[in-house]
């Protein structure tokens, strides 16, 4: 018994670690792929070189991030089998085909057109090249759709039966895919990806504005990013609220943990702003609360009764403290994003969007906010569904592979070392690429051959630098 618990815990840590690393890259590349498509469309439409410069700048960063996403994603597709083989056997008939569709409709599309997008402008011409960029962006969105259908089904399973071997059998694919939480989750995640990218792009633009380098390109990207933040942050807060109500309906224990409601509140529940959840004593210590607000938010009625974790058996409680805090981190960052958006709107109105140092500093500071919020959000929803892998149907402890704990431990250590090495280096290179914009502009792809000597300034770079700005951009 103790041994199997050990392997389960190690497998959980391994999954949490690898999936947390992985989600960073899709969160970034979904938004960035769409941004690249918009930039290239603007370039084709307005014939303004600034958009091609920005496209080339962000394309290189996209390539590095996408590469990291691919390799960490391959790990995920095999980890279901290595560490969660019982889950794979049982849930495979339902989630497997959805993941199969993800590969067939999205991964091949992205991979097939990525090469053309990165290497092919002078080989296929601008219009076909734009098609490739569009396909890559489209592929990232299709991929998000399928994988969120899978995740949502595990959270709010529907449309299935069971066979004698204990497998989940799909009965109605429409219900499987459009399970109760799917639309909320998909919208919330895609908006989160767009916000994440907007804040990264905004931070890079703001940083270059503070350094007063490449002002036109920096202004353009900063302004585009701030429009995105202004428009999407409030929509995201509404979407998040709707998602929360959906969760209350289908996974009440998760919301109880998010809100810190150990006890039921028969006549109006308070909103606990902060406090220290104490699962041993089943209460939140040092709570700062606003009376009745939780009932108002969740039930739109000040005095509505709200059930607490005391209505659920102890052994089915999710871990409260983690969820309580990760939820607050996510919401707090969401409102901070809204604040930046409104601030930028005010500066825009005043005509100081390009010159407000304080806004720029705040935007630089908020650059990683999207990643943190995405991680916090996923921690909330994934830890919140414990102790189940398939909510209400299959326990996590019953999902794990019959594999010895030392094997899981050894692979976990290997993953930790390799991920920190590899993705640490990648992050370093991306930051360096972000810094590079003013001094070392990307040569136009359709200008012809490009040096292959890496990013360091060299003779070839110097030879191209002169052509980069004033040139016309149609190779054909």
């Amino acid at each position, binding site marked *: 018994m103790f041994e199997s618990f050990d392997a389960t815990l190690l497998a959980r840590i391994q999954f949490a670690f690898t999936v947390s690393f992985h989600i960073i890259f899709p969160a970034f590349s979904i938004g960035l792929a769409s941004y690249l498509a918009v930039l290239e469309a603007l370039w084709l439409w307005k014939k303004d070189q600034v958009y091609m410069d920005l496209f080339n700048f962000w394309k290189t960063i996209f390539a590095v991030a996408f590469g990291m996403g691919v390799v960490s994603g391959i790990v995920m597709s095999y980890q279901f*089998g290595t560490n969660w083989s019982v889950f794979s056997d049982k849930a495979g008939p339902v989630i497997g085909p959805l993941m199969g569709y993800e590969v067939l409709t999205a991964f091949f599309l992205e991979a097939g057109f990525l090469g053309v997008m990165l290497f092919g402008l002078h080989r296929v011409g601008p219009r076909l090249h734009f098609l490739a960029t569009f396909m890559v962006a489209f592929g990232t969105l299709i991929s998000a759709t399928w994988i969120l259908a899978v995740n949502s089904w595990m959270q709010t399973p529907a449309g299935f039966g069971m066979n004698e071997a204990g497998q989940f059998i799909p009965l109605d694919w429409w219900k499987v895919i459009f399970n109760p939480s799917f639309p909320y989750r998909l919208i919330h995640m895609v908006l989160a990806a767009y916000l994440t990218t907007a804040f990264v792009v905004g931070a890079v633009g703001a940083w270059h504005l503070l350094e007063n380098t490449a002002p036109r390109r920096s202004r353009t990207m900063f302004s585009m990013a701030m429009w995105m933040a202004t428009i999407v942050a409030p929509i995201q807060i509404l979407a998040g609220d709707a998602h929360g109500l959906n969760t209350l309906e289908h996974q009440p224990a998760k919301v109880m943990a998010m809100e810190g409601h150990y006890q039921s509140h028969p006549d109006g529940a308070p909103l606990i702003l902060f406090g220290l959840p104490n699962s041993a004593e089943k209460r939140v210590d040092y709570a700062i609360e606003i009376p009745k607000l939780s009932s108002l938010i969740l039930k739109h009625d000040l005095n509505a009764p709200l059930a607490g974790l005391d209505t659920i058996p102890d052994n089915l409680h999710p871990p409260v403290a983690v969820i309580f805090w990760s939820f607050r981190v996510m919401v707090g960052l969401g409102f901070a994003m809204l604040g930046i958006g409104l601030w930028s709107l005010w500066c825009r109105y005043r005509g100081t969007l390009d010159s407000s140092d304080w806004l720029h500093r705040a935007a630089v500071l908020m650059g990683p906010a999207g990643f943190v919020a995405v991680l916090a959000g996923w921690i909330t929803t994934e830890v919140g569904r414990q102790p189940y892998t398939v909510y209400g149907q299959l326990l996590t402890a019953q999902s794990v592979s019959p594999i010895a704990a030392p094997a899981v431990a050894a692979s976990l250590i290997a993953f930790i070392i390799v991920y920190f090495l590899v993705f640490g280096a990648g992050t370093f290179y991306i930051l360096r690429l972000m810094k590079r914009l003013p001094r070392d502009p990307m040569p136009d792809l359709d200008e012809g051959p490009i040096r292959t*000597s890496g990013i360091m300034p060299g003779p070839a770079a110097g030879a191209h630098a002169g052509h980069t700005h004033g040139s016309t951009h149609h190779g054909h």
Partner: protein
Amino acid sequence: MAIDLPFIWAAIIAFAVLAYVILDGFDLGIGILFPFFPEKRDRDVMMNSVAPVWDGNETWLVLGGGGLLAVFPLAYSIILPALYAPIIAMLLGLIFRGVAFEYRWRTKRGEFLWNWAFAGGSALAAFSQGIALGALVQGIPVVNRAYAGSWWDWLTPFSIATGFAILIGYALLGSTWLIMKTTGALAEKARKIALRTCFATIAAMGIVSLWTPFLKPQYLERWFGWPTAIFSVIVPILVLGCFVLLLTGIRSKRDAQPFLAALGLFVLGYAGIGISFYPFMVPPSVTIWDAAAPDSSLSFLLVGALVLVPIILIYTVYAYWVFRGKVDPEEGYH
């Protein structure tokens, strides 16, 4: 008679895995050959010859894994724990070589590190795949729908042999790819390497083929019993034909011929394994039909696969077509 969905799916998964082996085979081969090309300029060209397509090649591996989970969940849930260590090693190898495609161009000081990551990662991934193949061929014990062995069972002399066989075979694919895609001294060197690796590949195929029938009575029966013995006559003859085409191709400087002949060798080797295996998904006890998901899963994904796989093949061919011809040493996007 109802349509035999598990059989159709076994064929599709087999196709996906074969597509993976021959496509990622040559780009892993490029990495395996890196140590033999110390010149930076050669390495740049080698890497650029596969940079636009490697990601698509590797997607077939995801389809093989994801497809197995979708349509043969029982096989997936048995094979992956049984091959735990080689699969983790393969994944780690693929991580290193995958990021090297981007990182290598982003640093001068650290370039040697990513050269090693590319070469070492490719070799590790290839070797692990070979070991996994050998471990699967030698059989996996199953009790109560689950893997029933220990976590070192995959390590045997036979699996080590198949590990080296795949490593050598991928090096052959990589070198013949270079003959096709490069010019000058680089192509000449690739010719020399191809000449050696093709003899080594034939030897490795011979050793593994002679070893396999003696692993299990079933395999022996397949290869020397009637009527399947017809195949055991045909396959070696075709292998010999490919071998001749390989040699003449390398000598005659018809630059695509050696690569195509090397692909032929892989297809034949793969067919040989298929002959041994059928109808098992996990030898010696789980058949295609035991492992299959319910028909509602199989038919749902089949509709998509029948429409989408041809489309995928079309735009994959298109992507290769865009980057056809010899690699321009000045080209790249970096």
